[in-house]
């Protein structure tokens, strides 16, 4: 499978990356080169093989279902959460207007 300019523009839009016409033209052959190379995986017989889900056997843990089980990832740390925000407003993350 190979991609054309329209497909690359669609991928960029899905990935939320703004691209110029020049970017697109440069990306098409690059992505096609990489995709053509990874397509050799199609020749591997994977009949009856399960896709890997965990590389080292492990089990999913659940933390205790209590508020602030871990003080570092719990609540009441608004200022720390907002400390790196580019445009915090009134204790919230500020974003451009989304509702007219």
């Amino acid at each position, binding site marked *: *499978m190979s*991609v054309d300019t329209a*497909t*690359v523009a669609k*991928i*960029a*839009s*899905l*990935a*939320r*990356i*703004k*691209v110029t016409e020049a970017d697109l033209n440069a*990306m098409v052959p*690059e*992505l096609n*080169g*990489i*995709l053509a*190379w*990874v*397509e*050799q*995986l*199609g020749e*591997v017989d*994977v009949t009856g*093989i*399960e*896709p*890997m*889900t*965990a*590389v*080292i056997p*492990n089990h*999913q*843990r659940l*933390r205790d279902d209590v508020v602030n089980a*871990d003080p*570092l*990832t719990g609540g009441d*740390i608004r200022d*720390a*959460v907002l*400390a*790196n*925000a*580019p*445009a915090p407003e009134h204790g919230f*993350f500020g*974003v*451009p*207007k*989304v509702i007219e």
Partner: protein
Amino acid sequence: MTNITDLGIAALRDGVAKGEFTATEVATAFNAAVEAAQPALNAFIVTTPEKALEAAARVDADRAAGKPLGTMAGVPIGMKDLFATKGTQTTAASKILEGFTPQYESTVSSKLWDAGAGMLGKLNLDQFAMGSSNETSAFGNVISPWRRPNDTAPLAPGGSSGGSSAAVAARIAPAATGTDTGGSIRQPAALTGISGIKPTYGRCSRWGVVAFASSLDQAGAMAHDVTDCAIMLEAMAGFDPKDSTSLNLPVPEWTAGLSADMRGKKVGIPREYRLDGMDPDVARSWDDGIAWLKDAGAEIVEISLPHTKYALPTYYIIAPAEASSNLARYDGVRYGLRDLPDGAGLQDMYAATRAAGFGPEVKRRIMIGTYVLSAGFYDAYYTQAQKVRTLIARDFTNAFMDVDVILVPTAPSSAFALGEKSADPLEMYLNDVFSVPASLAGLPAMSVPAGLDRNGLPLGLQVIGKAFDEQGVLNASLALEERAQFSARPEKWW
């Protein structure tokens, strides 16, 4: 008198404990070495001499008070700028995180500080750890301290932990943290003549480490030698409830368990790694390694890992897929860069921010990852790759029924010049051909210096072990180290 900056972890720690020098003297010496080398090597994104001195003062005070000292007490280290460090900028070498100041400390770094280590600074790397030459950093290339004879062309320190490898090789840091997704500890260690270990997936917590490909990312140690790596990895590893894939296992006493006696051990040599057109020096160094392990008492066994050739293409589907998901968080809302063109809405802001903040290689991988996960292509690319990954891991499981460790080269060549491979992404990707398979299988693997090639540049040998058997990896690596007698150092030009 010994030059302090020539010493590694064990020698510095023991010297401080015995009172041969103070931790403050150690930190001062390394701070000066860092400052002197920074303009030429660019190994650090930010330097933190005050942090190194603060940690040293605590160690000196503890020693004076007769308190017990940690296993890394008095050792100042470099911290790859992928680990969140509270109050110190953490960027992953990307413009999108420039100025980001974590409000918390990564588990791995905090364990190292608890063990008495200090921080010299945040080390440069390939942007989001995506690269094999440190050329994708938004904060400039790292220059290897190594050069070809009678040639001043700047060489790559490897990647993505290129700042780490350059700093340790140049002796401006006695040790450094690295992270390894497809070879990012082992390949730079090999290219700069130092040692580096990636433990079993899950040994070191990923909490507070900027994520690239979560099913592959593992932190590890980079240092002068095997013993120093064992000491440092012991300090870094351990169960962390904050990482859902952290292994809930005690950390073995790897340092105490070190033994170069390979009698009764079987070493596998996979025939699929002997590639057509292999660099003759790399092939020779591999043969040297086989002879050394035989000399250490091991039995050499030829093995087969039949799906080896599919490891790289598998990796270049899975890693970008996971990256495209992980890097979705950089949107200009919560932290990092925001690019808000006049009159732009939320969606435009996301797209403009990500276009301005991510470098070309990061964009390329996000695009590949987005494509292979998109509707209609998911099964053909991503599911197929995860199935092949199962087969690659199974190859290792089968091989380890017959052998204890596997010996292969670390990288297909010695260090290359900056710019030599950066024009063609595929050519750069091929640098990870020997390191990616163990990553896909989550196995512990280590690179140790094996000798110099025809250009006088270091070559590494890689030991791959069974899951959870870091001890076996460290021991075989020690057997290689004792016989390689690698003492070459880059001539100081910086």
